[in-house]
């Protein structure tokens, strides 16, 4: 009798290898984009141009920041949002300015959307005193409390319950505001998400919890780290949910606006999966062996910025030179930001002890 081949014991599903052996080939599949026009969505031409400018700013800001990182101008982590700009932009335009936003460590785009200037953002990356968090936070901790952008957070899933707290405060104060929280697909495996979804639904909190599913939890494809469809997590909590094409600005804007209206009106939370793609590695030292070049190219072909540009031109909402003008302006803004960051002073040593406590003369144990 032939010996039965001994099967190798495996736990985590494997990636990119032999598909017949169950290897995972792909990060994420996109749902269809909306076929609505900007008019259907109630967006003006000015708004479209502002959205284009915002997305282009995020893109160029990060491309330049990457260059500066590579030149050794600053250290630490640098998680780039490139490819995902339609989500931050579509959402910020869909929400009210008074609504709360919180995100994870891939936060530059969100900060720029919520009023952090390219200068203050770049200076923060450089660790300068003129940075948006006075050089105390760096890439992962952009924040602009004045504009209700409560920051980028570095513990995967850790900021999700905090968003429930924002919604709690909004309901407590009956101010009509809602809060929206963004996190990567890696965070859906954290207990913090599940505890928060339960609390949010139980207490009817006006909150939106959004997975920006870019297909990869660092180097692990979604199908290698989580079971079933991510959006179906909502079912266990009897929570309203949606899946959105995150490579298309109009799709994000349309659905996030609908959801925001519903949350505001009914004070009930939503769980939303926005599918997207990050073009760059997880952080700066990532050889990206967990995905194929073809997959990356497939998404770059449907780039959200290019898509909006094409829409603007094809529908004769803007002329080439008008868009070029915006691009040139943004380019200059980002170059100025680099110069500003470079020339700004580092924080003084005494600032090490500032911002720990509210009082002016706090106790420090020595």
């Amino acid at each position, binding site marked *: 009798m032939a010996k039965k081949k001994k099967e190798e014991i495996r736990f985590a599903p494997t990636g990119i290898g032999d598909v017949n052996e169950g290897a995972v080939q792909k990060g994420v599949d996109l749902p269809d984009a909306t076929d609505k026009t900007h008019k259907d969505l109630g967006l003006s031409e000015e708004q479209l141009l502002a959205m284009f400018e915002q997305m282009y700013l995020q893109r160029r800001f990060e491309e330049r920041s990457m260059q500066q990182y590579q030149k050794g101008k600053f250290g630490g982590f640098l998680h780039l949002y490139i490819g995902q700009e339609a989500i931050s932009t579509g959402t910020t335009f869909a929400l009210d300015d008074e609504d709360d936003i919180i995100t994870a460590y891939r936060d530059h785009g969100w900060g720029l959307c919520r009023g952090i200037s390219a200068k203050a953002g770049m200076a923060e990356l450089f660790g300068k005193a003129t940075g948006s*968090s006075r050089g105390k936070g760096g890439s992962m901790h952009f924040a602009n409390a004045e504009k209700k952008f409560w920051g980028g957070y570095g513990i995967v899933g850790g900021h999700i319950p*905090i968003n429930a707290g924002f919604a709690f405060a909004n309901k407590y104060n009956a101010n009509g505001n809602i809060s929206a929280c963004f996190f990567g697909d890696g965070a859906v495996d954290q207990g913090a998400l599940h505890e928060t979804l339960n609390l949010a639904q139980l207490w009817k909190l006006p909150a939106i919890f959004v997975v920006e599913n870019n297909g990869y939890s660092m180097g692990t494809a979604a199908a290698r780290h989580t079971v079933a469809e991510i959006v179906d997590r909502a079912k266990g909590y009897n929570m309203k949910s949606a899946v959105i094409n995150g490579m298309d600005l109009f799709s994000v804007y349309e659905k996030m606006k609908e959801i925001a209206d519903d949350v505001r009106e009914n004070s009930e939370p939503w769980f939303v999966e926005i599918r997207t793609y990050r073009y760059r590695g997880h952080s700066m030292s990532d050889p990206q062996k967990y995905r194929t070049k073809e997959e990356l190219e497939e998404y770059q072909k449907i780039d959200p910025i290019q898509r909006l540009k094409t829409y603007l031109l094809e529908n004769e909402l803007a002329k080439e030179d008008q868009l070029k003008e915006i691009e040139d302006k943004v380019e200059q803004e980002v170059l100025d930001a680099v110069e500003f960051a470079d020339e700004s002073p580092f924080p003084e040593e005494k600032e090490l002890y500032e911002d*720990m406590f509210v009082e002016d003369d706090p106790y420090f144990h020595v």
Partner: protein
Amino acid sequence: MAELQFREALKHAIDEEMDRDERVFIMGEEVAEYNGAYKVTEGLLDKYGFKRVIDTPISELGFAGLGVGAAMRGLRPIVEFMTFNFAVLAADQIINHATKVKYMTGGQIDCPIVFRGPNASAGQLGATHSVSYDSMYAHFPGLKVIYPSEPGDAKGLLKSAIRDDNPVIFMESEQMYGMKGEVSDAEDFIIPIGKGKIKREGSDVTVVAHGKMYHVAVQAANQLAKDGIECEIIDPRTVKPLDLPLIIESIKKTNRCVLVDEAHPFGGLAAEIGFLIQREAFDYLDAPVQRVCLPDVNAPFSKKLFDAWFPSPKQVIDAVNQVTYRT
């Protein structure tokens, strides 16, 4: 002065602060309809309603984080843990978020929140319900840590904690909730955070003890007094900020010190104060500082083993005898 139970003193503090500030609310497991697992919140639901006295699921990470978010948005949450042993599940929110959000955003966001509940052992509850966490939290920058021993201190310090604009850890004890003590009747009675108290004057040895250990120290001191040894007992009340000058001044008088701490020995408050004493009062010491704390062993269940595990007045007496060279 009124004589109140520890739990009543806490309730009065919470009640008074909720009364004076609409932003203060309390949440935790069984705090509302059940009237509190240890009756600290008894009657508060009736007085303040469901908006401000809120029952949570058993979901420490979730509701602690929710509290942090609410505090970041201007409310003043009191988050009750049924015990700090369960708060370990919420440690990410306390340690990584509440204490860090202000700093890492360059001062933009405050987090005025109180995490409170019973700490350390409550008798034979086994290994997972018996750990003392005050030293652990005191390790982290950005936290104030309070572990009072008597009802009067508890009320005055809890009111200060609720008014504090920073995150504060406030620790109690299941075994002290029924303990009675004098509580000031003064309107708006407040004890500042970071101030210790000489609770028994003596000239022979300084005994530093806080929380439940204070009572162990008192028993030992009463016994020693019969032998003519007068202990000066200092209750720091607040673990951090630590009232070090009060301790050092006492040691300059007594030249001897015993530290009584409910934590395990490695890196606990006793270890820290011991270091500080050698730095600040080296020339004043007539004997090496001794400490009485838990052994480096988990809490056992069996009564006999438990009694061997838990710090006793006898151990304190032995330590005092050691530093006074009476052995």
